């Protein structure tokens, strides 16, 4: 069997682990604990996944539980829906977020609605693993930021981990839940190693996490942008500005209470995402802060986002993705309001 740096049954000590290894370890835990769990997608079996996330799983659990599919995203999700209706717990992978578009009909019209349509008779315990966002200089169709699109669809839950420990815990929660979950893995963070303890989830579904405390403003982010916000907070601290960083983790449902509590402490909020500005999830976060923490706000909520253009191919990514300077400028706007 494949031995990863961190055994699925948890050593007591923290170990250097990448997000790639953490997701792999979570899948092993899930495959081992429930014989109904299935992992499938393009190249997840024999190859071990384009990002090596499913490495060794087919050798350990066999090709009836970890298997390759044809290159047909709509069919992958259609298969997951049919399997779920027959009592299985599918964990399909779509190789890149840009390849999710051909599967949107199955995701929106079937996966998200079947439980509702059957008046509860057919739950959809499907977790769609979606390598997401940019930052790896990939060509077109290999980087997107689809969280707002999926969060808008009734019936779906959406989450995005920002570090290896959360990648492990959120995947356990997602797969064990009887609802369909879009689990967005930030590609740019796959190789980042941290000393973490992989264990049972320590927060309920829908909970955010304060990854850095501060009193002057709250940076709200998810996925790879959490790290970017931590970098910005580090630089701001050199200037005597203390920024709180709130990792939303769940994009549907959003932790309204956690968000409001943080803004109540700081009085200012800057939301950072990779997706385009217009109708992005930043607008939802801004509305929630306004509705639930209005009296605490000292300045309008700022949004630092990608631009209203197609997600650019590799060489233009640094111009498109939020930079620490753009984040710090937005913070300055809230400080000077």
């Amino acid at each position, binding site marked *: *069997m*494949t*031995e*990863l740096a961190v055994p699925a049954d948890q050593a007591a000590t923290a170990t250097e682990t*990448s997000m*790639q*290894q953490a997701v792999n370890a979570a899948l092993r835990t899930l495959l081992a604990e429930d014989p109904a769990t299935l992992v499938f997608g393009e190249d997840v079996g024999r190859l*071990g*996944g*384009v*990002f*090596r996330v499913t*490495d*060794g799983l087919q*050798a*350990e659990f*066999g090709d009836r539980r970890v298997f390759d599919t044809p290159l047909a995203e709509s069919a992958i999700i259609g298969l997951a829906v049919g399997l779920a209706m027959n009592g299985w717990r599918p964990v399909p992978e779509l190789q890149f977020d840009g390849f999710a578009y051909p599967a949107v009909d199955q995701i929106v019209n079937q996966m998200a609605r079947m439980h509702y349509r059957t008046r509860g008779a057919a739950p959809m315990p499907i977790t769609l693993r979606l390598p997401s966002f940019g*930052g*790896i*200089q*990939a*060509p077109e169709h*290999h980087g997107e930021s689809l969280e707002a699109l999926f969060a808008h669809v009734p019936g779906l839950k959406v989450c995005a981990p920002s570090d290896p420990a959360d990648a492990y815990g959120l995947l356990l929660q997602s797969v064990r839940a009887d609802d369909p979950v879009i689990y967005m893995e930030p*590609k*740019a963070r796959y*190789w*980042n*190693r941290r000393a973490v303890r992989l264990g049972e989830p320590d927060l309920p579904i829908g909970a955010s996490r304060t990854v850095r405390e501060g009193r*002057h403003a709250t940076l709200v982010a998810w996925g790879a942008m959490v790290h970017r916000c931590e*970098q910005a907070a580090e*630089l*701001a601290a050199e*200037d*005597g*500005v203390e920024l709180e960083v709130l990792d939303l983790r769940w994009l549907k449902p959003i932790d309204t209470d956690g968000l409001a509590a943080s803004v109540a402490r700081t009085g200012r909020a800057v939301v950072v995402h990779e997706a385009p500005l217009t109708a992005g999830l930043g607008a939802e976060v801004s509305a929630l802060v306004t509705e639930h923490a209005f009296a605490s706000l000292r300045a309008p909520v700022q949004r630092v986002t990608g631009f209203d253009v197609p997600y650019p191919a*590799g060489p233009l990514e640094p111009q498109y993705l939020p*930079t*620490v*300077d753009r984040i*710090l*400028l937005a*913070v*300055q706007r809230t*400080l*000077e309001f």
Partner: protein
Amino acid sequence: MTHTGPTSERTFALPDLGEGLVEATVLEWLVQPGERVERNQPLVELETAKSAVEIPSPHTGVVARLHAEEGRVVAVGEPLATFAVEAGAGIVGTVPTEEKPTRRVRLRPPAE
């Protein structure tokens, strides 16, 4: 060349050796954990019901772990060795570098 960047792990399972053979015995490991290997370098000597065969390494990288000690019988499909190989980003893209970002913007703390 010494590689110091990020690595990813690849597990090599006992391949189908043909002739209907379903298992093999590990006779001798020709590499050790921690050792750097080149693709096609001799990896392990196995004995099947038909003959002894030398299996070459499928990867260039560092041997992370061996999964079967010498003398053990391994079934086709069972893991033999795990390699740490240089992390390409997969089929497309590049592994991002972990650099501390530079900035031009300086902040002024708010008046309390």
